[in-house]
């Protein structure tokens, strides 16, 4: 069940740890870690991998019928955890500059996180089994129907935003590789 807030607390803990590490780097180098240097670059890459893989893995698990590996609720918890920590790392990667495509990507990241939060609270209104299957429970059918409609609507928004984010992020990564990483 996804009634508790364990993944949120874990995400908060991870973010505090990352913030501490970030603060240490700021203290040692006496500057905001630039996106292009070791720390700033690393958190960007790791953050994006978090965002990318959890999305794809969660989707795969969700759509998979043959392999029921792990509970859906756990996967969702992981998705929420990485969906918070990943964007947070990406946010730190920006070095607080929001130019061009990179800035747009950051904006989309913020939007997708907000959207995810909203979705999480819609989602939890629908009673489910531990495997994420919906349960016809004590709630009135009307309430559940309403929640399902809302969930479907949310999906049609959350997923396009995510897709736009990934396209934008890929372009940003491609441009970064072209203009910086492989700069001769």
């Amino acid at each position: 069940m996804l009634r508790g807030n364990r993944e949120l607390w874990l995400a908060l803990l991870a973010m505090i740890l990352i913030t501490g590490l970030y603060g240490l780097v700021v203290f040692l180098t006496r500057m905001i870690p630039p996106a292009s240097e070791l720390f700033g670059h690393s958190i960007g890459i790791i953050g994006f991998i978090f965002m990318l893989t959890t999305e794809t893995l969660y989707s795969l698990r969700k759509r998979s019928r043959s392999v029921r590996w792990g509970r859906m609720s756990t996967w969702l918890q992981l998705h929420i955890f990485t969906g918070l920590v990943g964007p947070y790392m990406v946010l730190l990667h920006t070095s607080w500059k929001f130019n061009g495509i990179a800035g747009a990507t950051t904006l989309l990241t913020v939007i997708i996180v907000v959207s995810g939060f909203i979705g999480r609270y819609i989602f939890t209104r629908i009673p489910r089994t531990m495997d994420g299957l919906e349960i016809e429970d004590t709630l009135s059918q009307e309430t559940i129907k309403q929640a399902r409609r809302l969930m479907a609507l949310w999906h049609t928004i959350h997923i396009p935003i995510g897709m736009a984010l990934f396209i934008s992020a890929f372009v940003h990564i491609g441009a970064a590789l072209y203009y910086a990483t492989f700069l001769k």
Partner: protein
Amino acid sequence: MQSNRLGCLTGTGIIAVLITTFVIAGYAYASGGLMFNPGPLSAKSGEILGGVTSHSEIGRDCKACHSALWDSEKMADRCAVCHTVIASEMQSVASMHGKLTHDNPNLSCRHCHPEHRGADAQLTVMEDALFPHEAVGYSLNGHQRTAANKSFTCDDCHHGDISTFAPDSCQACHSEMDLSFTQAHLLAFGADCRACHDGVDRYGDDFNHNRFAFQLMGKHINVICTQCHLDARTIIDLQSAPQDCLACHRADEPHEGRFGSDCAACHTTDGWKPARFDHNLSIFKLEGKHREVACESCHQNGGYKGTPLDCYSCHQKDDDHSGQYGTDCSACHEPTDWDKVTFDHNKSNFPLNGAHVSLACERCHSTGQFIGLSTACASCHGDPAYHAGLFGFDCAQCHTTNNWSARFNGSHPGIADEGGSGVNHGGGTCRDCHTQTLHTATCVACHDSNNPNGEGGGEGGGGD
């Protein structure tokens, strides 16, 4: 919605992909790559290079600086298109850029000159260990650690702008380190530290004046710098400080130049006194008692050069001869002792010989007169009564200085030239006949008065 497709590949998802791609492509086309700009380019204006005065003017043209992955050209080659002077400088190891790239072959322009950091951002950022700071005329040898034992940062000296250095940048730190010294040093040598300090040499505590031609010894060690290096403002000024003694010591010079300008010939840096003047190098060597005499005895009124060399200038008062022997005392006297006289009487017009040699001076020079004393015998010797005034005063006619024994070579009138006696009748002496005086004579001393032909009663009178 239950399908095997990836969750993201929904209808709206695919539409979103297409729209996003279209928007990005469209914007990229319209903005000329601005969307990939990680930050504004420098707007700092400089000289006109490549038709622009700042990078920001070509901010929309990524290709102006960024070569494509598949191009053979590197980004640095794009820099060189406009920055031709720097590009040619990089060919020479003697130059800062040349040395930097020679020592670090993998270094590219952008490693020190990062861009896209804002319109006002610093265009030069260097790791200090990498940068050959001495190539810009100032070594960081002496600036490895701050007074607080921390590593130096560029900003410690280049406040804000690494490409400039304010001449007074040194003052703040060095005043903190030693306020009184720094202030005194600034007053003495001015505020342009780099006019003298190049960072290679270690001045300060490690400064060793003795590495230079003018070594500091004796009392020079504690002299403050400005006493010699007056108004020095550059290293050239310092190095051209005069090294001759008089340049600084003219005011201390009591000899009025009579000894020339090389004080060190007599004095050492340990002090003006004692001076180690070697008088014997002068034309007046000090010997005997002259060695013990105070300088002032001869060099009166502080005069040294031109001091008269003749004895009389000093010793006139000592002259017991009342000037009779002239002024050259050394003709007779030695500097060791007045009494040690080496007068050679034979060089006078009255050479001493015979019995005169052993006489005490006073026998002749009884009145203390030496010069002009008569050389006539009679001035000392009287004519004896025995001569009866017959021979005048030229004693030497008959006598020598060896003894008074005389030989009269004149004729003896009235005396028969008998027996070959001639003047020396009978071979005797004058007194044999002239027993009383020379104008009286007697025969009977030899001859018997009763027998004129016989021998006298004396030794000659054997015929009696």
